[in-house]
């Protein structure tokens, strides 16, 4: 049910040029020595460096590749993929296609700004993006920005920003087909074709994914005594999704244009808590998003770049709860959302080794709610039309020195948000006092990077952030989420510092970082579970501090890869409220350890290249409180996975993966109450919402490149 509420307005469409938002695209060329020749932008487009953003930002950026031809990532595996990054924690309601929310460095999910090729998908209406609504189809990599957040990512990214960067459509012409199947009738199928001429590239993709989500879990029947406990099977947890995608790119002279059209239809069950499962509740979604990026390189001064980024999103969503299994009464709510985004961005060289980036963006959102279940006792109809307009502008100066070894980036962003939330009497939600409000906020930032010795850089940043409450936070959704119209914008100061290590060469590579961070939030908006509903509150203050570390080692030819991430987090309620102050913020593990090892080799039976690879991952989280009063602490939880895949003749991939290898399904919780009797409960990220046990996923992918040069590059890979 969270899925309803977290109703994201969006999803996406991407452009093909594989560029991060303009200001970062610029930063990608920040090497002052190459900056003068004007060729750096082409470098970005043609051969985007997977770790480029990480290397050139004064912040801490993790780049997670998704289009590795040798690996198979489930198309609905964004939550799983994200959890590999240091400082990132994902909470799930359980099962593929079900609600998942991301937290970076202890942030609330709403404080993580999510983008698709630079276009925001974190709607002002819902704020909270359900990761399950962001399929990985056509995505080449994820960029996780922490600490220093480029001004193009807005003012609300107190925790960080996540950018899903699409696969370039000017990649070599090819045909790809893939299919997968796994536990609980999970199935996926996709086909993609890419073509290109000298100036135009295009790609079309269609996919289907679905699952029953009917995993078995430990059901305590909502009671403490274990007499009636046992295994139950999840119901109402399935989904089906179809997706169509078209990507185009073209270039002429110094002009480039990229366009992406994405359409998604999804029908998903909303299962409710494990002890009281829903059968008939569901969430239907039909979404279209168009993104166009127009860019001009060069101009009067070498290194100048002008870019326009535009996005239009339309989404129709229906939440249905015909038996009132989830919340307050029966529900049949239709929502139609329009989201328009436009952002001009300019980057010009100023003086020696200095660039000025200017970003402006405007966004308009309109949501029309049509509540079909009427109450006959004079209650409001539930219908409402609300809108929000946001404009922002930022300026960012990048000053390099010492042959690029020093980078100083002061930036300033100003945002204005005007909400038109008032509805006529008799409409809207119960006790609806929607008001038209406006906020203006200034968010200055400063980032610094110093390359001490070539592979080692020191980085630090400090900035102020601001986020206005969303529509769902203010008004709820008549379901799981109950609104709070008294919310005020949350504000915060974020500071971090640390070092990164990045070395990649013929003999292998070493990557890693160690960073400390500190976040002080005022009026933090926090969703608090309230029995069968959740409501947002302005926690008067919260302090988050911690450190994150990552180390990765890659042997030559990728034969062995090992990565290890560890995050220590101290997220504390500083509201001053008795019973909460000093306690951990819910849902943030104190310790989060992730390890991954991959071992592969290559041989040539009968002249065919075969490259098997064995992958093992483990995630350990400990000291996670799920309540605001510091009573419900989960015991340490370790989930492991092992996978075997084979890359054959550079065109066929076979994969088999077993997740939650040890079939961990229960944990023991001891509440500091009464006799302190240990109670077995299902493993969960949210109280009462079980996570699946062991599952199996098998995958096959076949790709044929079209044209003469087709296998040369693949062979090399």
């Amino acid at each position: 049910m969270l899925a309803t509420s977290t109703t994201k307005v969006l999803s996406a469409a991407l452009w093909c040029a594989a560029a991060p938002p303009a200001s970062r695209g610029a930063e990608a060329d920040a090497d002052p020595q190459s900056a003068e020749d004007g060729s750096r932008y082409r470098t970005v487009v043609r051969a985007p460096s997977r770790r480029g953003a990480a290397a050139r930002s004064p912040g801490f950026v993790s780049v997670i590749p998704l289009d590795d031809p040798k690996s198979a990532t489930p198309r609905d595996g964004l939550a799983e993929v994200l959890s590999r990054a240091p400082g990132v924690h994902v909470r799930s309601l359980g099962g593929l296609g079900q609600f998942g929310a991301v937290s970076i460095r202890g942030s609330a999910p709403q404080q993580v700004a999510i983008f698709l090729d630079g276009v925001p998908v974190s709607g002002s209406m819902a704020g909270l993006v359900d990761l399950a609504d962001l399929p990985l189809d056509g995505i080449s990599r994820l960029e996780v920005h922490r600490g220093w957040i480029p001004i193009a990512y807005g003012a609300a990214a107190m925790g960080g920003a996540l950018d899903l960067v699409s696969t370039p459509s000017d990649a070599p012409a090819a045909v790809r087909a893939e299919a997968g199947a796994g536990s609980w009738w999970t199935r996926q199928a996709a086909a993609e074709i890419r073509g290109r001429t000298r100036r135009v590239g295009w790609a079309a993709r269609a996919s289907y994914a679905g699952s029953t989500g009917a995993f078995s879990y430990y059901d305590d029947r909502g009671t403490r005594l274990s007499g009636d406990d046992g295994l139950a099977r999840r119901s109402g947890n399935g989904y089906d999704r179809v997706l169509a995608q078209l990507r185009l790119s073209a270039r002429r002279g110094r002009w480039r244009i990229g366009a992406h059209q994405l359409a998604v239809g999804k029908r998903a069950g909303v299962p409710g808590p494990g002890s009281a499962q829903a059968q008939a509740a569901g969430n239907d979604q039909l979404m279209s998003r168009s993104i166009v990026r127009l860019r001009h390189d060069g101009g009067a001064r070498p290194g100048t770049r002008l870019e326009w980024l535009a996005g239009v999103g339309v989404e129709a969503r229906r939440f249905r709860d015909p038996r009132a299994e989830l919340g307050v009464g029966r529900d049949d709510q239709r929502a139609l959302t329009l989201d328009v985004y436009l952002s001009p961005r300019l980057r010009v060289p100023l003086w020696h080794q200095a660039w000025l980036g200017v970003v402006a963006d405007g966004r308009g959102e309109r949501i029309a709610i049509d509540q079909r279940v009427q109450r006959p006792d004079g209650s409001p109809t539930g219908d409402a039309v609300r809108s929000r307009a946001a404009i922002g502008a930022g300026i960012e100066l990048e000053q390099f020195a010492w042959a690029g070894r020093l980078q100083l980036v002061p930036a300033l962003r100003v945002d204005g948000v005007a909400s038109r939330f008032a509805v006529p009497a008799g409409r809207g939600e119960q006790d609806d006092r929607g008001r038209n409000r406006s906020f203006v906020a200034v968010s200055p930032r400063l980032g610094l990077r110093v390359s001490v010795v070539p592979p080692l850089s020191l980085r630090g940043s400090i900035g102020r952030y601001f986020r206005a409450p969303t529509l769902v936070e203010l008004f709820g959704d008549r379901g799981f989420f109950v609104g709070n119209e008294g919310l005020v914008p949350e504000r915060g100061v974020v500071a971090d510092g640390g070092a990164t290590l990045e070395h990649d060469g013929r003999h292998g590579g070493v990557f890693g970082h160690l960073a400390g961070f500190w976040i002080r939030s005022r009026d933090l908006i926090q969703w608090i579970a309230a029995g069968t509903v959740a409501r947002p509150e302005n926690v008067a203050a919260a302090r988050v501090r911690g450190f994150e570390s990552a180390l990765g080692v890659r042997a030559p030819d990728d034969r062995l890869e090992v990565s290890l991430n560890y995050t220590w987090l101290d997220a504390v309620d500083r509201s001053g409220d008795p019973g909460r102050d000093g306690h951990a913020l819910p849902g943030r593990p104190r310790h989060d350890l992730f390890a991954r090892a991959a071992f592969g080799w290559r041989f040539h039976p009968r002249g065919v290249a075969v490259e098997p690879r064995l992958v093992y991952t483990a995630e350990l989280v400990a000291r996670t409180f799920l309540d605001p009063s510091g009573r419900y602490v989960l015991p340490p939880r370790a989930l492991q996975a092992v996978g075997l895949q084979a890359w054959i003749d550079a065109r066929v991939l076979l994969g088999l993966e077993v997740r939650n290898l040890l079939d961990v399904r229960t944990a023991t919780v001891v509440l500091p109450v009464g006799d302190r009797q240990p109670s077995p409960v299902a493993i969960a990220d949210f109280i009462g919402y079980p996570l699946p046990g062991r599952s199996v996923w098998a995958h096959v992918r076949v790709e044929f490149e079209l044209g003469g040069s087709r296998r040369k590059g693949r062979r090399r890979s």
Partner: protein
Amino acid sequence: MRRLLWLLPLPACAPPSDAACDEGPVRAAALEGIALEQPCAIEIAAPTRLLVTTTDFATGAVAVVDLATATVTRDVAAATTDSIPAWHDGAALLLNRYQYDSVTVLDPDRGFALAGEHAVAAACSDAPNPQAVVFDPDGHGWVTQLDVPTLAPLSLASDDDAREPIDLRAVPDADGNPDAGLAFACGPLGFVAVQRLDPSYGRVGPDELVAVDLVGGQVLDRDPDRAGAQGLPAAGAWLRQLRADPTDAHGHTVLALSTGIERFALDAGTVSWAVAPERFAAVALGGPRQLQAFDVDDTGTLAYVAAYAEDFSAVSLWRVGLDDAAPQQPERFADGFDSVEHTLELVDQRLWYGSTRRDAPGLWQFDVAGAVPEPLGDPLSTGLPPYSMVAIP
């Protein structure tokens, strides 16, 4: 928070499911000729403690308050986030409502240790949603269920209860479910407050107090000449809380909080206003569901009421004279609180009120002996914020 406070009771009132609960013929007998012989068991006489359920809406617990010493023993037992306390024959009960659907039994003699858990299940509902429990003279319990048109049998001694549920379908309701809520017993006769809610919680008719033969296992009809079994219709909307009327020595009169305070004379089968809604409306307490909880003094002349503000942004405490007693217009004597369920109890000359107000959650005390109720210090901490409470021996 404030919106939530008044919304929260709604989840405790789940509308009927689509599943059929209409098997078998509908039975009802005439109430006429059946006299009340035993006093109604609505409240405990001479309480010495308060049994308080607490919650932060993530977890729940139980606290016990010693009224003589004003001390709180916190976290004596675990509860759910929607547990309503009750008491019967030396046992503390927790009615775990929407989606918990169980009754927990705690043993006060063993420090309120867990003594039993009883699931409230029905074939025709995924969430029966227990609301209240009454006991017949033989000690058999009967649980009202908002989502199921029966009284479910409850045996504290065993889970193996062979008794059949008592069918409430005789009470007419458009959707077939009378939405049973509050209940009490007067010897073998039970009284169940039924609501008239449509599947989307819309109120489509007046609440009624329906008599049930707990021993015979059937609804008793006040007016057999009319179609369907008839209860005693409430004068106001939404029966929120019931109290014994101290002015009736026989214990056959009930005071009920709705949009006012109304008096059910069970012997006579009449309903009248003790405090008319207009008197509350005169002080901006006239909206539906604004009145939240109440109690009356030992003389039955003065009522203390917890009520939401019009926008449900806060809860304030009032006192008002019943019938012709002063004050005729409700007087506010404390405000700025929050509360969710029934957390107001008057014992002797002390008023206890549990507030969830974020900056000062706990149990407030007021000395009501004087002309004006006086707060007695800071609130007592109950561990988690108080959710619902009942006075116990």
